[in-house]
C-alpha cells in the first residue's frame, strides 16, 4: 500500500514536472526561435508610412524614421508605403531631400497604395523603384496657390507696399518657379523611364497604375510585400526582418485641430455654392484628393 502510494505520488510529480517543462518551453521556444531567426536574418527592411497631407509635422516624423534607417546598422533597405495626395510645397521638398539622402546610402523602394500624387510623388522621386497597384493614382506634377491677396484694411500698418500683399503676378512667378523645380526633378529622376515631354508632365495629369507604368511615372505593378521583397533583393538580403514605422496615432487629431501652417488661404470653387470657398486643408480626403491632389504654394509671412 505504502509502496503503491509513493509510486503514485512519484508519477504525479513526474507529470507535474512535464507539464511545467512544456509551459516553460512554450514561453522560451519562441524566444529561441526568434533568436535563431535573427541570427539567420542578414538585415532589416524598414517600411515607412507616408500618408495624409504632406505637412511640416508629418515630414518631421518621416524624417526621423528615415534618419533612424540611415544610422541603424541593421537596416539595409527602406520601403516607403505611400498613400497621400500631396500637401505643402516646402515639406514636400524636405521629404524629397530626406528620401534622396537615404537613397544614397541604401535601396529605397516606394509602394503606392491608393494615391501617390503631387507632393507625395515629389517625395518618392529619388526611390530606386516605384511600385503601384492597378487602381493607384500617381502624378499631378504641379502647384496650386491662391492668386494675389485680399487687400488689408487701412487700420493695418505695414512697412512697405509688398509686405503681406503679394500681387497676382508675383504669385504667378512664385508658382511658375515652383513648377519648374518640381517638373525639373521629375525629369531628372524619371528621365530615363519617362516617355512624356517636360511640357506634357507640366500638364499635371494624374495617371492610373497601368498607364503610369507605361509612361514611366512608375516602374512596376505590385503590392507592398512585393515591394519589400524587391527592396531586400536590391540590398542583397535573402533572409530579412521587416520593421514598420507607422505615423503617430494622434496624427488624425492633429490634422483636424491644427490650422494652416501659413497665412495663405487656398480656395476652391464649390459646385454647391457656386462661388469660392476657403480650403483650410486643401487635400482633405473627400475634397480635392484624390482626383485633384495638388501641392499648394506655401506663402510666408
Amino acid at each position: 500500500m505504502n509502496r503503491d502510494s509513493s509510486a503514485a505520488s512519484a508519477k504525479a510529480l513526474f507529470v507535474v514536472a512535464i507539464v511545467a517543462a512544456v509551459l516553460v518551453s512554450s514561453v522560451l521556444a519562441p524566444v529561441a526561435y526568434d533568436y535563431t531567426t535573427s541570427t539567420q536574418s542578414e538585415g532589416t527592411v524598414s517600411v515607412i508610412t507616408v500618408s495624409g497631407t504632406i505637412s511640416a509635422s508629418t515630414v518631421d516624423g518621416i524624417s526621423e524614421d528615415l534618419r533612424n534607417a540611415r544610422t541603424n546598422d541593421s537596416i539595409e533597405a527602406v520601403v516607403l508605403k505611400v498613400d497621400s495626395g500631396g500637401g505643402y510645397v516646402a515639406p514636400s521638398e524636405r521629404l524629397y531631400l530626406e528620401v534622396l539622402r537615404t537613397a544614397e546610402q541604401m535601396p529605397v523602394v516606394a509602394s503606392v497604395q491608393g494615391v501617390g500624387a503631387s507632393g507625395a510623388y515629389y517625395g518618392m522621386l529619388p526611390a530606386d523603384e516605384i511600385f503601384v497597384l492597378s487602381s493607384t493614382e500617381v502624378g499631378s506634377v504641379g502647384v496650386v496657390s491662391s492668386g494675389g491677396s485680399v487687400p488689408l484694411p487701412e487700420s493695418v500698418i505695414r512697412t512697405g507696399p509688398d509686405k503681406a500683399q503679394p500681387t497676382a503676378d508675383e504669385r504667378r512667378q512664385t508658382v511658375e518657379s515652383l513648377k519648374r523645380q518640381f517638373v525639373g526633378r521629375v525629369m531628372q529622376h524619371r528621365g530615363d523611364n519617362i516617355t512624356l515631354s517636360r511640357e506634357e508632365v507640366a500638364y499635371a495629369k494624374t495617371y492610373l497604375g497601368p498607364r503610369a507604368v507605361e509612361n514611366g511615372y512608375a516602374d512596376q505593378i505590385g503590392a507592398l510585400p512585393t515591394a519589400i521583397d524587391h527592396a531586400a533583393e536590391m540590398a542583397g538580403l535573402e533572409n530579412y526582418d521587416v520593421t514598420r514605422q507607422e505615423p503617430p496615432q494622434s496624427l488624425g487629431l492633429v490634422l483636424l485641430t491644427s490650422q494652416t501652417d501659413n497665412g495663405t488661404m487656398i480656395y476652391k470653387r464649390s459646385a454647391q455654392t457656386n462661388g469660392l470657398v476657403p480650403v483650410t486643408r486643401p487635400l482633405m480626403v473627400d475634397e480635392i484628393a484624390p482626383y485633384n491632389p495638388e501641392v499648394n504654394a506655401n506663402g510666408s509671412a
Partner: protein
Amino acid sequence: MEARDLTGPAVAFVVVVALIVGGAAVLPIFSGGDTPEVSNLAQQQADLDAARVAAADETGEITMDSDATGKTVLVDKAHGNEFSDEKLSTLVNTLVENGHEVRFVTQEQARGSAWNESLRSADALLVANPTQAYTPEQLAGVRAFNDAGGRVLLLSDPASSSGSILSILGLGVGPQQPSSGGPGLSSTFGVAGHSGYLFNMHEYQHNFKSIYATAGSGSLSQDVDRVVFRGSVAVSTDSGERALTAIEQTKLSTTRRADTYAVAVQSGDVAMVGDTDFLAPTDAYTADNEAFIGNLADFLVSGQKTGNAPTPPSTGSENGTGPTLPMPTL
C-alpha cells in the same frame, strides 16, 4: 562581516565603472564621433537658374491717335456686368484725358425706354461680361445704335458662373429670344466667342493661362507687336478682321486643340476682345498692352454715328405694345 571586507569590492567597482564610462567618453575623440558627413543635397539638386522667373517689363504710355473730341462713350453697368472699376479706370482715364465723356448706365437708368434714350445720346457702347439678360427692346436698341454707326465694344472673359456674353446678348439667335443662345448660328454682330479659355504650355508669361497674342490686321493692332492676356476666350468673326491672334501652340481648354485663335476681332463698328484683365492697371503696361488699350480707345471714339438712333419708340411701333424693332435710319 567587517566593513574592511567591503573595501576591496567597492574599489574594484569604482575602477571598473571609471574605466568603462571614461573609455566611452574618450572613444569619440579617437573615432571622430558618429556625426555623419552631410552633403548639401538641396543645393546640388536645385537648378537655380531654371527656377528663377524674371519679372515682366512694364513700360510705355497709353496714348490715343484719334483727333476726334467730345465723343460720348456709354459703359453698360446695368446687366450685372462683372467688370471692376479698377479695370475700367485705365480706359476711362485715357478717354477723359483726351477730351471725351464716359457715362455709366446703371440698372435703374436702363429701365423701360431709358436704355434707348441713353444710347441715343452716345457715340459708343462698351459691354463687358454681362450676367443678366437684355430685354428685346434693349437688344433692338443696341442693334439700331450699331446700324447707325455707333461703335460697340464687347469684352468677354471665359465664362465661369455667368453665361457667355453671346447668349446674354442674344447674338446666337433671333432678337426675341435673348437668353438662350445656340452655337453655330450666325451672329447678328458678326462676332462670336468660344467656350473655355485659351492656354499655352509652350510659351507663356509666368502662367500657362497668360498667353501671348500678336498683331493681325486692322486699326486695333496698330503699333502692337504682342500683348499678354491672362485668361482669354477665343473669338471669331465671319467677315471682319482678326486684330490679335494667339501665338502658335495656343490651345483651347475645352477641345485641347492647337489652332490660330483670334482673341480680338473687329467687324465694322463692332469689336470683341476675349479678355478684360489686360485693362487692369497691373497688366496695362505689360508687353504692348498699353498700345492695344490706346487702339481700343481710338476705336470707341472713331465711329461716324448718324441720325438719332435708336429711334424713339413712338415712331417705331404702331401700337406700342410689341417690342421695339430696329428701324431703318436716315
